[in-house]
């Protein structure tokens, strides 16, 4: 198990790393909300450093998406791991996430 981290990269960006599972995402959700609160207009999270994922990762991104909407901040998600895509698909959440992903 690789402990996850969420580190700010300037006020509008953050790097997400490590394993995103049921056991690890709860503190990340809170940390992400803090960073989103400080962001203006757009907040980009880069998942290039993410290792293991589960639907807990999808729940985490959904939580941030809802919080961004409340704060009128646009969420952008970069470098989404390929192995997260089937979980998003079986959760019927492609319509929600596709518009958030950036290449």
């Amino acid at each position, binding site marked *: 198990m690789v402990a996850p981290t969420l580190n700010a990269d300037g006020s509008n960006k953050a790097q997400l790393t490590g394993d995103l*599972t*049921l056991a690890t995402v709860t503190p990340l959700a809170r940390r992400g909300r803090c960073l989103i609160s400080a962001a203006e207009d757009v907040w980009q999270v880069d998942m290039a450093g993410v290792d*293991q*994922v*589960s*639907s*807990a990762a999808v729940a985490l991104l959904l939580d941030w998406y809802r919080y961004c909407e409340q704060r009128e901040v646009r969420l952008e998600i970069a470098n989404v791991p390929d*192995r997260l895509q*089937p*979980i998003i698909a*079986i*959760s019927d959440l492609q319509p929600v996430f596709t518009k958030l992903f950036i290449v």
Partner: protein
Amino acid sequence: MDKLSIRGGRRLDGDIRISGAKNSALPILASTLLADGVMHVGNLPHLHDITTMLELLGCMGVQVAVNEDMSVETDCGQMTSYVAPYDLVRTMRASILVLGPLLARHGKAEVSLPGGCAIGSRPVDLHIRGMEAMGAEVDVVDGYIQAHVPGGRLKGANIFFDTVTVTGTENVMMAAALADGKTVIENAAREPEVVDLANCLIAMGARIEGAGTDTMIIHGVETLHGCHFDVLPDRIETGTYLVAAAVTGGRVKCKDTDPLLLEAVLHKLEEAGAKVTTGSDWIELDMEGRRPQAVSVRTAPHPAFPTDMQAQFVVLNAVAEGTATVIETVFENRFMHAQELVRMGADIHVEGNTAIVTGKPGLKGAPVMATDLRASASLVLAALVAEGETDVNRIYHIDRGYECIEEKFQQLGADIRRVSS
């Protein structure tokens, strides 16, 4: 509403992977309610009922996660509710399977009564009587089974089922696993899915003897722990694809399955003239271009010929050489596919629980309507043989039991597509 549009006449040829069995996955997911710790369940089919069961667990406060390998992880450590609400139960009768685990683990449960069913009565009385025998007090109020256990822990009991019931056996087995003392289930269901659940419970620390026989003995334990468990392959999906090969004169190899799960079906397919070869986890059927011979079957509880393969064998006989009888002894009102097959040119006479089927060299495409899961599968099989195009409507039935059915048939060379309307 989606439909399947099928142009028949192609001989199937290819390999497919068999999915996990829904009828095993649902009770095993319900059994995760018994675990003190995290459960990992693998080889789950991606079907709507599985999602509904996960939703049901989630609405009771169970933490559920889907992992990268599509296995599911559950943690019941922070449950907030013991209610299975009508909105979920009405879409999935198997929701009743949470009754036993909830009573055993928490001493209380409230489960909506399931609604009617197209293929005959499947009463929940046997489940309720089983729980009462173990000391639960049960009332039916406003469409809900409201049950609680005075003293908090169920007690072992001798339970005789006057009708063989798969879900009833499973519910009582799960409840008994955590009950105080020994439970004996007589006239227990012997289906492989019951054995799979027993194996899962044993992996969680339960003490169960006699799974797969008609007498099961369960010695209750104080707690059950989490474990990894992969559900067994779907024997009915396996059988359906093998019959598809047989009726089209083709060859299909089913991988990731278990030939021991469907010996009665394989025997009948060989009797129909198919060349069947098996390995430890695969089955290949090659019809070598021949037309099947008619074979009579009589459905009965496992290990006899399964009722869930009856409709497929009606189709096999409809295109076979000769006349055969298909006798349904498990469920009433389960020949609704016959009338649709007659519309495609089949020669079928239904009298009571018996269908007399005289084979014809071919069927003709027609718009048909699915009425239940296995009936739908039989219409797809008929369409694969029929001359011309067949539209199978109301395929939400088939989507409940067959994962990626059109993709799998396409892999085998069938001309089949899903049409959304």
